[in-house]
C-alpha cells in the first residue's frame, strides 16, 4: 500500500522526503495541501497532525510529521541496512547531529532572516548568521565528501533541501569551495529535480510576498 504524503510543492521540508522516497524506491500517494486555503487547519487535518505542518505521512494508518523524523522512519522501515542512516553508533550520531543542526541552526537562521522580510526590510545581521551557519557546513565537509562522512546519508538530503531553498531566494550558499563541490555531488541524487521545481515555486512565493509589502 502506498504511503499517503501530505505536502506542498513549494515547502522546503517536503523536498527531503520526496528525495529520500525516490532513493528508497517508495511509492508515495501525493496529496497536495493548499496551505493558502487553510487546508492544513481543517478538523480532519488537525486530527491527523495537531501541529498542522507539511510534510506529513500516513503509512498504513500511522501518521507522522517533522520531515527529519519522516526520513529516518522511512529508512528504518523500508531501507534497513542502508548507508543512508548507518547503524554504527558513531556514524549514526554524526548523521543525527547534522539533522538537529539543520533544524535548529541552519534552516532556523534562514527562517529568522526570511520571515520578517514579509513585513520589514532585510536585516543584514541575520544574513550574517545564515552565512555563519553555512560556514559550519563548510567545516563539516573538511576532509569528507558528504555532510556526515564519505557516503551520502540522510544528512545530505536534509541539508540539500535547505541549501536549494537558499538559492531560490538569492542567498549565495556557494561562497566557499567545499559546499560548492558537495552540491555538485548531491545534484545527481534521485529526486533532486523535484526539489528544484519546488524551489522555483518557493522563490516566486517569497518574492511575491516581499514585493506586496513594499508596494
Amino acid at each position, binding site marked *: 500500500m502506498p504511503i499517503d504524503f501530505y505536502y506542498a510543492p513549494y515547502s522546503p521540508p517536503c523536498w527531503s522526503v520526496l528525495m529520500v522516497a*525516490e*532513493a*528508497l*524506491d517508495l511509492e508515495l500517494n501525493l496529496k497536495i495541501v493548499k496551505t493558502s486555503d487553510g487546508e492544513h487547519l481543517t478538523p480532519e487535518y488537525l486530527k491527523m497532525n*495537531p*501541529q498542522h505542518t507539511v510534510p506529513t505521512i500516513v503509512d498504513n494508518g*500511522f501518521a*507522522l*510529521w*517533522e520531515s*527529519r*523524523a*519522516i526520513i*529516518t*522512519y522511512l529508512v*528504518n*522501515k523500508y*531501507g534497513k*541496512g*542502508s*548507508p543512508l542512516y*548507518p547503524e*554504527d*553508533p*558513531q*556514524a*549514526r*550520531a*554524526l548523521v*543525527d*547531529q547534522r*539533522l*538537529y*543542526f539543520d*533544524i*535548529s*541552526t541552519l534552516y*532556523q537562521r534562514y527562517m529568522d532572516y526570511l520571515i520578517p522580510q514579509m513585513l520589514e526590510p532585510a536585516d543584514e545581521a541575520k544574513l550574517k548568521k545564515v552565512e555563519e551557519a553555512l*560556514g*559550519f557546513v563548510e*567545516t563539516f565537509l*573538511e*576532509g*569528507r565528501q558528504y555532510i*556526515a*562522512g*564519505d*557516503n*551520502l546519508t540522510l544528512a545530505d538530503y536534509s541539508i540539500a533541501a535547505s541549501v536549494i531553498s537558499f538559492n531560490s531566494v538569492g542567498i549565495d550558499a556557494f561562497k566557499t569551495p567545499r559546499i560548492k563541490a558537495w552540491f555538485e*555531488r548531491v545534484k*545527481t*541524487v*534521485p529526486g533532486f529535480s523535484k526539489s528544484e521545481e519546488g524551489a522555483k515555486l518557493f522563490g516566486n512565493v517569497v518574492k511575491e510576498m516581499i514585493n506586496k509589502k513594499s508596494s
Partner: protein
Amino acid sequence: MYFGGLARRRSRLNTLLFLIHTQSVAVRPPWVGRVSCSVHLNNNMRITKTLWNKASAARLLLYKRDASPPSNAVRVLGAMLGLQFDFEEPDLLQMEHRTPEYRKINPMATIPVLKDGDFTLAESHAINLYLLSKYGGEQKEVLYPSDLKTRAVIDQCLFFDAGMLFRRLLEVSQPAFIGKIDSASSTHIRNIEEGYGIVETYLESSPYVAGDRLTLADISLGCTVAGLEGIHPVDADKFPKCKAWLARLAAEPYFKEFAVAGGVLFGKLLRHVWRRNKKAD
C-alpha cells in the same frame, strides 16, 4: 554517485548498498585528535568531578552548565544509565563558548558537548541517542524502543523540541543575555503557550509524550519545559495534562535533581540578567 539511475532496481541496489556498507570508512569530526581530552579552556574552567565511566571504562567528558536545559537532558539520561561524566563548564556570560579554543571542539559554540574518548559530539538530542545506543544496555529498549512507530514518534518529539519548543526559550534568553530585553514580551508568552499547547496534544491519549512509558522524548521535552517554567509557568487550567505530566516527571529522581533544579536556576539567572538590563537603560 551510487544511487544515480539505480533507484528503481531493488536487487541491484541492495547489493550495492551492501558493498558500500562493508567498505564504509570510520567517520570522525575534523577536530578529533587535535584536541586532547583534558583541554582546559582557561583557568576558570575546572573539572568538577574526576570519575571513570563505569560502563565503558572510557572517559566521558561533558561540557555543560547547570542552568542549561539541553545539558540537563544529557545529565538526566546519563544518571539513568549510571554513567559518570567529567565536566567542563564554559562561562556563557563571559563568552567562553565563543573562543577559538571552544570552537575547535564545537564550531557551533553551544553546550552541551560530549567527548567519548576521541569522539566529540555536539547537540543534546544527538548526544542522548548516541549514549543510549552505545551504553544503554537494557534501558535501550525502554527509552527508545525498537518498535518503529514508537521510535518515530520519539524522533518527532525530539525534532519538535529542537525546532520549536527550545527555540521559544532561546527567543527570550538570547536577547536577554546580550542586554536587549528586560522582560518577556506578550509575543514571547504567546509563543511559549503555543508550545505548551502542542505538548498538551502529545499527551492527549497517553501519560507520556510518546506513549505509556517514559522515553527519551520525555527527557528532552521535560528539561525544556522545566526551563520554560523559569520564564512562564505552565497554567494548570489551560494545560492540565502538561502540568500533570511535569508532576509525574518530577517524581523521577534525576528529573528533580537536574531538570527541575536547572529550570529554577535558569529562571533566577534570567531575572538577574533582566534586572541588570533594566538598570542599564
